[in-house]
């Protein structure tokens, strides 16, 4: 079953594919882009507190919730 969620609602260990960036704020978009968080990319949630850490490719990125909230994912099971 596919489920669409926002990154700040994910829990550690989950894997998902980014489907959309839900913001019109250019600064936020540029930050996400520079970290390689763009639609089509697969990411894994490593930590969700105090803020979110995800693995994108071989790099780990820490993000504040307000940035993570803009990322929409499709969960991938397994």
């Amino acid at each position, binding site marked *: 079953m596919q489920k669409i969620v926002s990154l700040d609602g994910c829990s550690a260990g989950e894997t998902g594919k980014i489907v959309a960036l839900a913001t019109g704020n*250019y*600064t936020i978009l540029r930050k996400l*882009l*520079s970290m390689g968080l763009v639609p089509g990319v697969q990411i894994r949630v490593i930590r969700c507190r105090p803020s979110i*850490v995800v693995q994108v*490719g071989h790099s*780990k990125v*820490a993000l504040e919730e307000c940035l993570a909230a803009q990322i929409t994912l499709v969960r991938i099971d397994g």
Partner: protein
Amino acid sequence: MLWQRGGISLKAVVLVGNPNVGKSVLFYQLTGNYATVSNYPGTTVEVAHGQASVEGRQVRVYDSPGIYSLLPLSEDEALTKRLLLEKSPSVVVHVVDAKNLPRMLPLTLELQACGFPVILVLNMMDEAKKLGVKIRREELSSRLGIAVVEAAFVHGWGVDVLRREIAKQLNGRLTARPFCRPATMPEQEQQVFIASALQRRRAAEKILEGIYSYGDLRRGAWLDRLTLHPVLGLLFSIAVVYAGFYLLVGRLGAGILVDLFEGVLFAEIIIPWLTVWVAYLPWPSVRELLAGDFGILTMGFRYAFGIIMPMVGTFFFAFAFLEDSGYLPRLAYWADGLLRKIGLNGRAIIPLTLGFGCGTMAVVATRTLESKRERIAATFLLALAIPCSAQLGLLLAMLSATPFLLLVWCLVVFSVFIIAGSLLNILLPGKRAAFFMELPPLRMPKPGAILQKTLARMRWYFMEVVPVFIFISILLWLLAGTGLLGSLVAALVPLVGMLGLPPEVSLIFLYGFFRRDYGAAGLFLLYRSESLSGEQMLVAAVALTLFLPCLAQLTMMVRERGVPVAAAIIFLVTMTAFAAAFLLRLALALPVW
């Protein structure tokens, strides 16, 4: 050949790339000039340049702060962009971390689109290979239409191949004339920029199709996971601070080594010996200048080499270890919550911890902060509540004999930090920027690299400190000779008296005005002579910690923030320092103790 004033104009080779990919390592390999290398994004905050020879030809190489795109997000990124536009480079070497090629290749495309002659360097191939990343270099090169070089600069691999490629580029086509976007863009253009950035990302994925594979994504070192674990991570931080700073700097540096250098070498050997020789000089005032109370040798050199050098040395060593391990970005992650409360974000942890090494370097590092309000707030807090290594070491040595005093000192300084930060957060206009940061892999620091960095920083520190110390000695000698010193000190005595401190301390505050570490060294000797009570020492330590930073840091504050902001900071810092010390004195006098 073009001749200019000052010599031949050399062709420019600019090293660019994302933060923390190895540009500064490469800069050292090419030019032999040391540039600070650390395992966190945002190490380089100033452009450095040096000469290199490629296939018998001299070129000028520029190292630049890391960038994510040609549209800067912070001040240091803007410097790189300006460098690219101003120098019309003959070669732009784009360094990437090979294992993260899909994320970094869009910048290559952006540089190419702007018309720069680019060479792509896939650095960190050693790590990429271990993770099973596979890249078909030749195919990549032909798809991009530029030279692609594989490298692992920390091991020296790939430097020669890169040199050959640079030479080829120089002999080949003419320098391209780049065209680029202006530094700030109106809304609409931002939209266009983002759209084209997404396009470049897709183009990069297309280029990499079939020639790049990720390898093992799950492999992560256990230490990496440990430092991100909430409880274990905290324990680990405490262990790091205890071992690195308390044991190494506090005990070894400020304790054992200072005893050895100051207590034995200076007090028992050098000074008695000097006194004998100086006594032969026929001019009493020169005798006084060299070996008197404020003598260049008996005070300036003694403070610099007997007291400050052992501490600063051990501190820089411990700090280099911390920087190279890649732990600082994780600390930034943990500190983010706290820093948010005072209007900063986790990113500020890097300038703030650098401040424990040297405030002057730290003020420059505030460039990596996104907004002006954050840069001002960080500069203020650095000036107020972050003691530099020399000061910290001395205070640790004085206070650690009574752990209670040390605890109170920490609490007072920390509270001042939080209160001042919160007030600034309310007063300064604008909003805090959202936290995002790459967490680089933890790496085992290389002893050679740590030693090199420690020595480079010590050399730099002493080049700066020794002339100032000599100058202070001469100035004090002049003031003492003309009797002005007495009146200056006398003017400070009532203030010092309000803090419940003996008159001798006013002289120390006067030193502290020139350099905080110098003041701390004076206080340290006063402590040794046992002329201060515990409470007095505590009050003096708090006042001196919060008091004005040294002249070098002040100069840097003026350079980075401008005169009005720097003046406002100086005024507020002085007031806060005095008020906090006064309140502490009153609190200590309460009958509850």
